[in-house]
């Protein structure tokens, strides 16, 4: 019944003769449960609905968000938005949108077991069973959120996209103490699909293993070696490296400075397509079309059909991530990277699922020739500067490699490295692709986006740990 209000808003914009208008109606139904140290801290359910309405008039961009389905209020807030845009037009940037093919499509993600059909009691039991496996931890914080978002996107150009996408997300933090020392691990799982995916996560088994690794690290880990070594990183670290120092710097809105105040800029400039970014072993894609992935969608929030984006091909920059605004600046077509967190957020350029493409190396081949090295399987702390140039990753589960063999655990190895140094030092990439779920933060105001990030195990030659 709410579509009537979206149609009303679009008609209103047409009557106002805007150059472009777009209405995104979003309804979310879901629930959440949070367990703290085994006890239900809170559970909840949520049904929210609202409209994000964007318009372009005389090359000035306006956005209106409203969650009241009352035509008088919609009209009033749109008029207010139009007035503010008009008043600000003297300072406005000259914004245009790329011309794109217009689609009228309906799609939904199939759920074998519908998220909303599984009672919250079963979800609480799932977390409780997980908690039982790690109850010796000093602190346990476990949450599960599930829900389905229905979107109805219409534009004055004639696009009409209906989608229905379920999303589930687990987030957990374990704090383990041994002899007064503590270690922590943050874990996240997510899929766009039915409850069957939650069962596939094997949460109890995974967290139980993580608990043992944290204990072992506190009990047995030794100092990590100084001087030049070879660093082998697991898919979790490959993923965060790909996301932070390839995906983000190749977002065109950063490159053009639109997010410069907060989310930051990029050391990459617009003329870098076709230039060297890393070694020939480095090929990195962003692909929102992976079914059931956290970053899945087929049409972006501007109605553009998305596709796999080859960001870096054999070490060379191939393309940036674009929405219609940045594509127009570059004189190219959008590659469907426009996403908004919710109806009340503007669409900006976002990653979907970003990963390093597999190479040809087996695990044995990756480490057999290493005299002295470190295998960093997972990480705790990380950060990167706002141009995406110098970054830090602190290992969580990590081992010494000596004469081609994996040895004892080592304690929190740290690598701080520049983006070119990192990607030019990759000399081998494993065969097996593994992806992890994450929430990517960007924009002002801040928007979170569910994404996948990952790749295979990769080897970084001749680097120094901090």
């Amino acid at each position, binding site marked *: 019944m709410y579509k009537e209000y979206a149609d009303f808003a679009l008609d209103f914009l047409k009557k106002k003769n805007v150059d472009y208008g777009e209405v995104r109606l979003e309804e979310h139904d879901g629930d959440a449960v949070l367990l703290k140290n085994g006890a239900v801290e809170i559970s909840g359910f949520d049904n929210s609905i609202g409209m994000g309405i964007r318009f372009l008039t005389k090359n000035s961009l306006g956005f209106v968000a409203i969650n009241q389905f009352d035509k008088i209020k919609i009209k009033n807030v749109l008029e207010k*938005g139009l007035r503010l845009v008009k008043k600000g037009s003297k300072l406005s940037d000259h914004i245009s949108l790329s011309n794109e093919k217009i689609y009228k499509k309906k799609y939904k993600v199939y759920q074998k077991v519908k998220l909303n059909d599984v009672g919250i009691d079963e979800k609480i039991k799932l977390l409780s069973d997980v908690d039982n496996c790690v109850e010796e931890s000093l602190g346990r914080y476990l949450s599960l959120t599930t829900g389905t978002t229905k979107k109805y996107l219409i534009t004055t150009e004639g696009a009409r996209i209906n989608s229905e996408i379920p999303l589930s997300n687990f987030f957990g933090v374990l704090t383990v103490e041994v002899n007064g020392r503590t270690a922590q691990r943050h874990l996240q799982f997510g899929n766009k699909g039915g409850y069957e995916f939650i069962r596939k996560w094997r949460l109890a088994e995974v967290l139980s293993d993580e608990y043992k690794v944290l204990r072992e690290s506190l009990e047995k880990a030794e100092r990590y070696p100084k001087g030049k070594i070879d660093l082998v990183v697991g898919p979790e670290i490959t993923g965060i490296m790909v996301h932070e120092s390839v995906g983000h710097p190749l977002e065109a809105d950063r490159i053009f400075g639109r997010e410069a105040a907060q989310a930051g800029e990029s050391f990459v400039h617009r003329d870098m397509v076709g230039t060297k970014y890393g070694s020939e072993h480095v090929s990195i894609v962003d692909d929102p079309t992976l079914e059931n992935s956290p970053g899945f969608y087929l049409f972006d929030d501007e109605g553009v059909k998305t596709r796999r984006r080859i960001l870096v091909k054999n070490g060379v920059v191939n393309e940036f991530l674009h929405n219609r605004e940045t594509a127009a600046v570059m004189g190219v077509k959008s590659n469907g990277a426009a996403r908004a967190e919710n109806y009340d957020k503007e669409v900006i350029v976002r990653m979907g699922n970003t990963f390093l493409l597999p190479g040809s190396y087996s695990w044995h081949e990756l480490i057999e020739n290493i005299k002295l090295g470190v295998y960093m399987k997972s990480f705790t702390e990380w950060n990167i500067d706002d141009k995406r140039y110098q970054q830090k990753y602190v290992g969580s589960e990590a081992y010494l490699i000596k004469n081609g063999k994996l040895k004892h655990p080592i304690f929190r190895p740290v690598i701080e490295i520049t983006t070119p140094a990192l990607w030019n030092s990759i000399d081998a990439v494993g065969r097996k692709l593994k992806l992890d779920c994450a929430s990517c933060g960007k924009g002002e105001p801040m928007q979170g986006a569910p994404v996948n990030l990952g790749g295979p195990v990769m080897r970084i030659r001749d680097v120094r740990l901090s």
Partner: protein
Amino acid sequence: MEILDYLMGGFAKRKVDDMVVNFISNDIRRIKFADNKIVNTTVESHRDISLFLAMNRKLLVTNFKENIHNGKNSERVLRAERKRADKFIDLTMKRFKIIRMTEDYFGINNKKFKYSEVKDGYDRKVKTSDDIDLLERGINAALKMGVKRTNGVLEIYDAAGLLKTSEGIEYKDKKSEFYFSIRSFFDKEESGHMNCCSRILRKFDIERTGKESGEIARDSKDPKNCSKGNYDLVLSPMAFAPILMHIGEASSIFSVESGLSFFSDKVEKKVGSEKLTVYDDGTLANGIGSTKADAEGVGTKVNTLIDKGIFKTYLYNTSTARRYKTESTGNAGMISPVPWNIVVKPGKESINRMIKNIKKGIYVTNVWYTRFTNYHTGDFSTIPRDGAFLIRNGKITGSLKGMRISENIIKMLMNIDAVGDKPVHLRTWEADMPVYTPAVLIRNCNITTPVL
């Protein structure tokens, strides 16, 4: 609002023990600019009803949508609204049947408080301010400093709330806010960032903010790569704000119980230097986080978190306070205790005097991407950005880039050697918890850099 009473009446009939029903309206205007030009103007209008419900120690949070009425308030519309509310109550009661008890839940506030209005809490000019003129003044003030580009956002919030509880508590609150964030670029690598926020227009000094952002950018010319090592740091209020946000979060009993607090087992223990005193102040005049009462109607107050280096109290709501046999600190959020405004007691030192007392140090004007290895121990790192100035023998000798503060938060608090004399009120993108703080001088901090 009639519907709030209807919902509460419906749940009372179903024997729900505790109820907090909160209606919030929020009207927002936002102007985002990049390269001195407006890139988006936003107008938002939100109306939300949220509910906290407890029955037999089973806890639920949820929300109820306002009805469609197209401007009419006829009896027919009200009947439809009540019918929807009945359905919502039925659905909620079904949920109650299948969720588990929270054994250590001890109820909501049942005391009546005499609330005091937040001083300078609301300004009617929020409805009529000339946003484009404000923005132009902020940008121009930065450009006058000789910078080439400015980027940022101007936001204006006009919010109102009505809270009712099953214990007969009821209060209304209004809040206005003006927020400006501007990052100026003298060149690609030379930038300065400054924010300001105020609940009243008269105290919203957008031109000073633009000017200071431009000054930092102008002064940070030709930054050189920093060398790793130990440095004394002067952290400006912007740079100290993320650390204060984590102090606020770590003070909530929720974080302590979750293993996410570096203040675990630290009550009445030393966590900082004698020069450091920190409060959480829900009553702060013109405070962005200030509110006359918390989310269960307990009147807010000033809570001393750190007194001359000694950690004094966690932040509690009524239920957690009863669990620990203490009093609520007036910090209830919808789910767990939350800080309102983190306030640092000013000292007597100017930033210039702090710099004069440093042999080898860095004046840090902003940080970004603060991340923890371990929230329980406080091991973390953060990246200085925008103007960062090398200090040698009491003087600024140049600007720096490419460094990271890799430290432990308790160690840093212990090493505070001076607290500034000019506090400012801020909330930032990196630290959205409002703070009121001067600059601080922290001795002997570990600076790391990329290793090639």
